[in-house]
């Protein structure tokens, strides 16, 4: 088993952290191997940012994705920039509020993760809601393992907020259907 995952958005949204948490869930809280790499521009905020994670039950040689099993987009610019990586059977997850122009003639999972974060009172946990949605939609990692990785990776005083974001994202993901 080897799955290649790309999470993209704009700088400052926490896509690197989202990939980091997913990779940590795989190799610290599940018995799998993971490699996480990233690319982003020189800006601290804005610009297309991308986090790439490979998860495998075997040794991982080449550490960058050569294909995409799961594609997650949290910004229009990033969706447009990195769309060429999509295969016919790639699972695609977007937030339709953040990627309004997403009609590419194929089914897509749409989860309003930013809305979930705003309802919780802090847009900053949009990325964690998306990690929840990914976990609910894509049957790869045990949600408890991912939740442990979330708790392990965010500041202690924000644990509850992040867990709520993860849980709501996960539920929304479980209920989502490609459309």
């Amino acid at each position, binding site marked *: 088993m080897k799955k290649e995952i790309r999470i993209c958005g704009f700088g400052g949204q926490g896509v690197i952290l989202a990939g980091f948490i997913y990779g940590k869930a795989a190799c*610290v809280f599940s018995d799998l191997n*993971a490699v996480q*790499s*990233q690319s982003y521009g020189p800006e601290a905020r804005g610009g297309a940012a991308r986090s790439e994670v490979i998860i495998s039950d075997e040794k*991982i040689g*080449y*550490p960058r994705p050569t294909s995409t099993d799961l594609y997650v987009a949290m910004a229009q610019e990033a969706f447009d920039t990195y769309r060429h990586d999509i295969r016919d059977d790639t699972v695609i997850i977007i937030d339709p509020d953040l990627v309004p122009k997403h009609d590419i003639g194929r089914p897509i999972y749409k989860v309003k993760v930013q809305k979930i974060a705003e309802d919780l009172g802090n847009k900053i946990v949009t990325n964690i809601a998306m990690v929840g949605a990914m976990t609910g939609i894509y049957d790869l990692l045990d949600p408890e393992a991912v939740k442990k990785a979330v708790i392990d990776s965010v500041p202690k005083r924000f644990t509850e907020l992040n867990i709520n974001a993860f849980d709501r994202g996960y539920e929304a993901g479980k209920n989502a259907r490609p459309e």
Partner: protein
Amino acid sequence: MRYERDPERIRRVLGEKVQFIQGDMAVTYGALLAGVSFFGGYPITPASEVAEGAARLMPRVKGTFIQMEDEIGSIGAVIGAAWAGAKAMTATSGPGFSLMMENYGYAIMTETPCVIANVQRTGPSTGQPTLGAQGDMMQARWGSHGDMTAIALAPSTVQESLDMAIDAFNLSEKYRHPVCLMTDGEVGHLREKVVIPDEDEMELIDRVPATVPKEEFLPFTNSQTRDSKVPDFPTFGSGYRTYVTGLTHNKKGFPATDKQKDHEELIRRIISKIEDDREALTDLEEIQLDDAEIALVTYGASARPSETAVQIAREKGIKVGMLRMRITWPFPIKQVNELSKKVNKIIVPEMNLGQMVHPITEYAAKDCEIVLAPKVGGEMHLPVELVEILEANL
């Protein structure tokens, strides 16, 4: 105040045994486990995270971190700290490594144990700061003027970055030589699983202190207490009067710049203390070489796509294998020569326009063709690119 390595404190500071961290941070972790107590550095992409980690963690193990004014000052401070008894290191990348070359030679000449972690990028000059390359393999070997030799390790994974940081300190202490940990921007910025070794899974080597009566002590000659070309170490402050100079010096350490015999004896000993041990300093990984007709010879980041390329090519029925050098200097002369007699061709993937391909060509049998597979611009080879090169060379 003398630093006492406290294994329990170090493990408490490092945290969980299994972690998901970047290669750069793994270098810092390995150094702390080895007992580093002094870090002098200057931030530079893609090596900054090594210093950031050291700045955060060193005070917590009662070690010292100093951000120096530049890379020349950094290695100078490291050399001084080493003479004061510390296990000392710095971390840098291409341009900073270039600046360190004069003091790198000084550390070789004065037989100063220390570690330089080089998270390589490309050049010349400032080049591509944020991207990885294997730009300094030859600079590590030949970068200082005069006759010299080098010890250099090249990790391919985050776990190896940690393990080899420990090895680098052990070798620097054993041979009293500046050891280069030649990682790169790719491995340095990847996050992977690391397992922090338990105390009983690690072997730590410390320099041998001077113990002979003070009036008999000779600081720059074969050990006076062991059968070794590595002299015993007179830590500053231990009462052994020692003069340390980059000038050609006699056994007592005093300048002997016009003495042919003293110079030849000194330089030959400094080189042979390492090169006599070439076999012990050979560390290779062999993958599917038993029936191979063609071989990839790799190191560091370029071993990652190479290993995947071997898998893909094997599925296509190509009899290919791979030899990976964990230690690149001293160069594994015998093993590369033996491999070249077994296979028809050797392909050398490098993230530069050809560096390690030169010793490979020099020491391979003359009827074995050596093919350089370079990739520059800040990207690793794609495995399929290497498969195409293999197919074109059948």
